[in-house]
């Protein structure tokens, strides 16, 4: 039951974050790249105040899968390492926390561009 509730919360919060993004796109016509950066920064700043982690505790993947969760992970990693190792930690912690995601994206991007043929987009 608890697991099921977690899925419901993930759907509602994750869908809600995307809904906010879609409303912003509808009214401002921002491009995808700018939307990604906007939500990344929003997640990072919220985590600066320790708020975004609480949302992740509540909604699981609903908060960690959107790009704002990526921003949160960067800040969380950097702050945690800074508390341990000072300035050195502040410089390494963020990227270290996100290294898995970035590496998988780069390697699979390379793999796909080797394996697949570019296709013309359908109009």
């Amino acid at each position, binding site marked *: 039951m608890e697991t099921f509730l977690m899925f419901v919360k993930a759907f509602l919060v994750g*869908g809600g974050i995307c809904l906010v993004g879609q409303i912003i796109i509808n009214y401002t016509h921002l491009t995808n790249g700018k939307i990604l950066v906007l939500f990344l920064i929003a997640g990072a700043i919220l985590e600066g105040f320790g708020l975004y982690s609480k949302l992740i505790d509540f909604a699981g993947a609903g908060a960690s899968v959107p790009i704002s969760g*990526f921003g949160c992970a960067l800040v969380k990693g950097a702050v945690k390492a*800074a508390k341990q190792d000072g300035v050195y930690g502040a410089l390494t912690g963020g990227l270290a926390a996100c290294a898995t995601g970035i590496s998988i994206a780069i390697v699979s991007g390379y793999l796909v561009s080797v394996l697949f043929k*570019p296709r013309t987009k359908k109009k």
Partner: protein
Amino acid sequence: MAQYEITKDNYKEYVFEKMPKSSHWKNMFWAFVVGGTICVIGQAFIELYSIWFNSQDASVLASGTLVFIAAMLTGFGVYDNIGRFAGAGSTIPITGFSNAVVSPALEFRAEGYVYGVGAKMFLVAGPVIVNGVTISVVVALLTLLFGG
């Protein structure tokens, strides 16, 4: 038909006017449903990985799995089809980041593996990582200064 005087200032307005209008409500509905569904799939992977890993690692691996799946779907040309009706629902989840990495890498392969794949891969990922890393270092230094 009235002749438009296109200047630098009103060009954007002119483009908006000519763009095909799609229903805002329909856009928002699909963004919510597709975005929510991607997060539910992510949650399913978290539950699965929690069997073997602690919750922190399970969450990171679940996102990684979504990134890999989205990369493959981009290769098959499926992800861009989802994106056409899901809008932000397919852009904002980490899968949209993956799509933004893989899509230009694939598209510019003809320009070679150095200046094509290697450079164009960071067309969108670059701004995301640059902004993310900068803000994380700034926040961490502020925390050190003010003892957060």
